[in-house]
């Protein structure tokens, strides 16, 4: 048993923390305020190899592990949750399923460009009538000659419009239920594929969240990902990994709010002493820090199990559930401890509170995480 990061992981954390502080933090408020996708940050991250952390070197990645990837999302989200989710959706939801389920040709074609950040990745499962009930897919894929024809709509797709590669789920046989769902690799520019309305959101406002439209979209047969009818399994397995990413994002938001609140309560004086000298403040902050550290251990443990090839589905669900709820609690209290200033955009905690909310919703709501955990408990 060893709770310490390896030397490599520590060196990585040193780099990503410095990068986040110097390159990402200064843009966070502006990106949020203007709902602007931080393209310049994406280019900088691409040059450093941040889009290919857990991708093997053979496919152009850095050959790192999932703990490093989790640290990256945590440290980026600590200063800007928008930047964190761009990396998370790209890595966990697009590159990972291609690495895990792709043919050698697909891996050779897509992974090097995803790892280098030349292409961004995205994932399309959610539909207007298929949210938590992801099995109710209405997007259809019909085999015609050497290609599939896709028709339908996906919504709330992270990185949409900026991504080049999309892992898309569609029904290939409606009579088979979840066993009739298949996964496809769809590229920007394929005929009949377009990006629709961009959502205006409460938080993570710099990240692009859009509708995807498939109108007789022609997808070559070689872009089927995994086996025909194997899509639902791929989606669920992908989301297990994705939850480590979102748990890391939530953890980062919570830590960022703690950092800001420690700083503020030491400086802010009322009744002749700083807020941090009031025992009520100390006790509440101690409780919050304990929860943040517990969330961190859950996130690290799930990442460690994934790296070790140990089943981690329930661990990832617990990590995401606890980290997301911790992020919401910490950020809400952080605003409270900042008082009136916390409610203004002069201070970053109100942004962090708005950003935290989504971590309880996307890549499986907190209720879905409880379903996953309970299913393992009562199997």
């Amino acid at each position, binding site marked *: 048993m060893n709770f310490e990061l390896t030397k490599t992981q520590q*060196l990585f954390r040193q*780099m990503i923390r410095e990068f986040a502080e110097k390159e990402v933090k200064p843009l966070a408020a502006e990106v949020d305020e203007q709902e602007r996708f931080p393209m310049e940050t994406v280019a900088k991250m691409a040059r450093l*190899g941040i889009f290919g952390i857990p991708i093997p070197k053979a496919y152009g990645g850095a050959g*790192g592990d999932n703990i490093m990837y989790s640290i990256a999302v945590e440290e980026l989200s600590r200063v800007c949750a928008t930047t964190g989710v761009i990396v998370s959706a790209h890595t966990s939801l697009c590159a990972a399923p291609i690495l895990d389920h792709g043919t050698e040709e697909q891996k050779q074609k897509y992974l090097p460009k995803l790892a280098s950040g030349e292409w961004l990745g995205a994932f399309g499962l959610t539909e207007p009538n298929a949210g938590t009930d992801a099995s109710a897919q209405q997007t259809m894929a019909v085999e015609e000659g050497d290609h599939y024809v896709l028709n339908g709509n996906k919504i709330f797709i992270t990185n949409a419009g900026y991504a080049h590669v999309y892992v898309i789920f569609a029904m290939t046989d409606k009579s088979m239920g979840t066993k009739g769902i298949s996964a496809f690799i769809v590229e920007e520019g394929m005929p009949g594929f377009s990006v629709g309305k961009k959502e205006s959101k409460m938080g993570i406002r710099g990240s692009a969240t859009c509708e995807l439209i498939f109108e007789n979209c022609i997808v070559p047969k070689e872009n089927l990902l995994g086996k025909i009818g194997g899509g639902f399994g791929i989606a669920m397995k992908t989301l297990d990994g994705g939850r480590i990413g979102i748990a890391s994002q939530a953890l980062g938001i919570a830590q960022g709010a703690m950092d800001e609140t420690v700083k503020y309560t030491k400086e802010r004086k009322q009744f002749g002493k700083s807020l941090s000298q009031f025992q009520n403040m100390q006790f509440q902050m101690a409780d919050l820090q304990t929860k943040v550290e517990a969330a961190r251990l859950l996130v690290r443990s799930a990442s460690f199990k994934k790296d070790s090839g140990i089943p981690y589905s329930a661990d990832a669900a617990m990590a995401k559930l606890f980290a997301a709820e911790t992020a919401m609690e910490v950020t809400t209290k952080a605003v409270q401890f900042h008082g009136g200033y916390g409610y203004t955009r002069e201070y970053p905690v109100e942004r962090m509170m708005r950003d935290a909310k989504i971590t309880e919703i996307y890549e499986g709501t907190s209720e879905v995480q409880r379903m996953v955990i309970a299913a393992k408990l009562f199997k």
Partner: protein
Amino acid sequence: MNIVVCIKQVPDTTEIKINPVTGTLIRDGVPSIMNPDDKGGLELALELKDKWGAHVTVITMGPPQADLILREALAMGADRAILLTDRKFAGADTLATSHALAGALKCLDYDLIVAGRQAIDGDTAQVGPQMAEHLGLPQVSYVAGFEMKDGKYIVKKETEEGYQMLEVEAPALVTVLASAYKPRYMNVSGIVDAYGKEVEIWGADKIDVQENQLGLKGSPTRVNKAFTKGLKTAGEVFEVDPEEAVGIIISRLKEKFII
């Protein structure tokens, strides 16, 4: 082209506190970092590598923990790393340090030696120039720009008045300003590989130096007293309109013979 960059691990002085009683630095819990001017020097070397395909060696003298900054340098793109470590080096002042480093440099091939201007823990700016003297090399300190032309180095040296442009024959030694070279971040792939690479450990027996020039024996410097710098008195504040302010500033500068 072979470049050797001399780097030093220093306490991050932005986070350091001073014991008010003893006047000494409290080093506990203070993170150790690569000295900023040295990191600027490494960036210069890596830029030359990007442009001309140079081979970059980093070398540091320090305790075994200094391994960390060599790994960082490897992750940034250095090709070879050497850690000079030996009990015989302990207690070295700038002169003994420069003798040890020069002794190691004599065992290496180089066209250019790069050092930082000064370290943030000692601020002496002596080790780089001393090494050049020991090695009989031309040297340029306070370097803010560097180019190569017809096998010669065109070096921009910062002075208090402005800049000097100097032409220097290779091999030479330069000491670099952090402000002139924004260091690159470590690359993720480089980080993954950094601990798989070799850091060569060199002791006193491995380098070309006389033993009495090393460590405490080779160090003529004695620290007489360490103390915390007193605070300056508060400045004067004049709340006047700009024209009157200009008059006040000029008269004060004249009083102090600054203008």
